[in-house]
């Protein structure tokens, strides 16, 4: 049987399978994952799951009855190591186990992997990562015996885990190599807000931290040494320094790759037939008004879902545009960060804060045009900016300066309907 083979039982892979059936696609669909778990959701691993608020069961995407009822074959614990593909896009994928899977068309939803720490001592037991369920299970199993934690990397995953572990009573130090937290995703005002928040709750944050090695304690990890000679004690070291897209299979097929598998607006790779979706894909910037030729690779649930829908349309023979505005979230203890849009290219910002209510948001503009917002515990601002971006409405800068004014009230609808973007 050779229908669609989806490699990667990820958020993107699951959505692709689900969307295909929702669109009435009748052909065989196999959703294949390398982990020995039913397809599950990752976001809670660093938050509710780590804190013990929810169980493994609530991470599961769909019941077996759902998969059976929709004739989606779910295969777990099979890692594809080699693919033979013909010019028409069909072929055979070979797993490490010796099993093989024929396909008529291939979808790569293989995601990204945690970037490994390159320091002496980085391979000591107790140096951990947090990307998948097994990582989370190992971390969780170790937590009761742990007092001191060093988190290397002050990005989303590091801060989420730091907040969760602090809640569990651990002494947590975050070592960030850059001058501010989450420097890749938020502006300086938001970085500082996050730093103040976590510091108040007892997380030690060291910026511009240059770690030189992981210090052993017997056979396991004992701490992290900085270049100035200071040693931060650690019973475990959690590394969250970004991810690397999994492009090896695509490269072996001769597909164009450049920071991810290069795909067109319809999620189709350079061979014109294979689709690639989610964290592993490099796509034309889908934001309305984005510069022609600009490309992005997202690491987000929202993109996995939206791009999977586009790919599902492509597989059923329809060319549909990417819908909606990229958005991101990160829950860090009591702090809920929601980001709408992409702030790159902004030339001015404004801050709306209400310290009494704990609300904080930063709006990013290029001239009079709003590009994005970082919102902390401020869903009203987030939802208002997301809606405005989606309809290309304006939020006048001067009026938005007053934090008491609801953004929804000052939003000005676009004069003309949204134009179709030119082909990139």
């Amino acid at each position: 049987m050779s229908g669609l083979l989806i490699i990667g039982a990820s958020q993107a892979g699951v959505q692709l399978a689900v969307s295909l059936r929702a669109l009435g696609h009748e052909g065989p669909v196999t959703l294949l994952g390398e982990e020995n778990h039913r397809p599950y959701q990752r976001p809670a691993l660093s938050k509710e799951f780590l804190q013990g608020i929810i169980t493994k069961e609530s991470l599961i995407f769909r019941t077996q009855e759902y998969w059976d009822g929709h004739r989606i074959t779910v295969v777990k614990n099979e890692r594809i190591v080699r693919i033979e593909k013909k010019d028409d896009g069909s072929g055979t994928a070979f797993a490490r186990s010796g099993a093989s899977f024929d396909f008529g068309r291939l979808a790569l939803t293989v995601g990204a992997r945690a970037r490994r720490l390159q320091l002496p001592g980085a391979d000591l037991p107790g140096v951990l990562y947090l990307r998948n369920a097994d990582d989370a299970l190992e971390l969780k199993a170790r937590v009761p015996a742990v007092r001191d934690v060093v988190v290397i990397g002050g990005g989303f995953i590091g801060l989420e885990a730091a907040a969760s572990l602090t809640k569990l009573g651990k002494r947590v130090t975050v070592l960030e190599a850059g001058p501010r937290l989450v420097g890749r995703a938020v502006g300086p005002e938001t970085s500082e807000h996050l730093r103040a928040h976590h510091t108040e709750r007892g997380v030690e944050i060291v910026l511009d931290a240059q770690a030189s090695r992981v210090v052993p304690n017997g056979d396991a990890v004992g701490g992290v040494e900085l270049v100035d000679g200071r040693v931060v004690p650690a019973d475990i070291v959690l590394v969250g320094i970004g991810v690397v897209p999994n492009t090896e299979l695509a490269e072996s097929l001769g597909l164009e790759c450049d920071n991810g598998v290069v795909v067109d607006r319809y999620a189709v790779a350079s061979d014109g037939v294979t689709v690639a979706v989610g964290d592993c894909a490099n796509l034309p910037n889908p934001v309305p008004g984005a510069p022609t030729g600009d490309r992005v690779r997202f690491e987000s649930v929202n993109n996995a879902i939206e791009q999977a829908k586009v790919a599902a349309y492509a597989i059923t023979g329809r060319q549909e545009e990417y819908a909606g505005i990229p958005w991101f979230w990160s829950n860090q203890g009591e702090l809920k960060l929601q980001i709408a849009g992409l702030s790159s290219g902004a030339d001015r910002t404004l801050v709306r804060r209400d310290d009494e209510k704990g609300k904080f948001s930063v709006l990013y503009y290029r001239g009079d045009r709003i590009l994005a917002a970082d919102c902390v515990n401020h869903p009203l601002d987030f939802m208002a900016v997301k809606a405005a971006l989606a309809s290309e409405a304006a939020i006048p800068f001067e009026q938005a300066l007053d934090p008491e004014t609801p953004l929804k009230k000052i939003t000005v609808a676009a004069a003309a309907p949204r134009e179709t973007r030119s082909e990139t």
Partner: protein
Amino acid sequence: MPKVTFTDAIGDTRTVEANPGDSVMETAVRNGVPGIVAECGGSLSCATCHVFVDPVDFASLPPMEDMEDEMLYGAAVDRADTSRLSCQIRVTEDTDLHVTTPETQV
């Protein structure tokens, strides 16, 4: 067995058996009930699991928190008097809940 009855915007109805402790959103998504998107997986970040609760049932639910209330103002279809985010409604042993899903969630 607790149950939740979902009615979509055109009136089609489906009743799903639910597990105590799960949210109404999880009950819908895991069983493939259309009309509930739940992009954020239940972390109260996206407002794409908006439902209109049957007015009689609505009164029996625990009140919503401020964050849910604020998120509802941004739902794709305007909120009504009995709007809730279904990720915040927990199923209990004696749940027999009736909800209607909006025309769109995004």
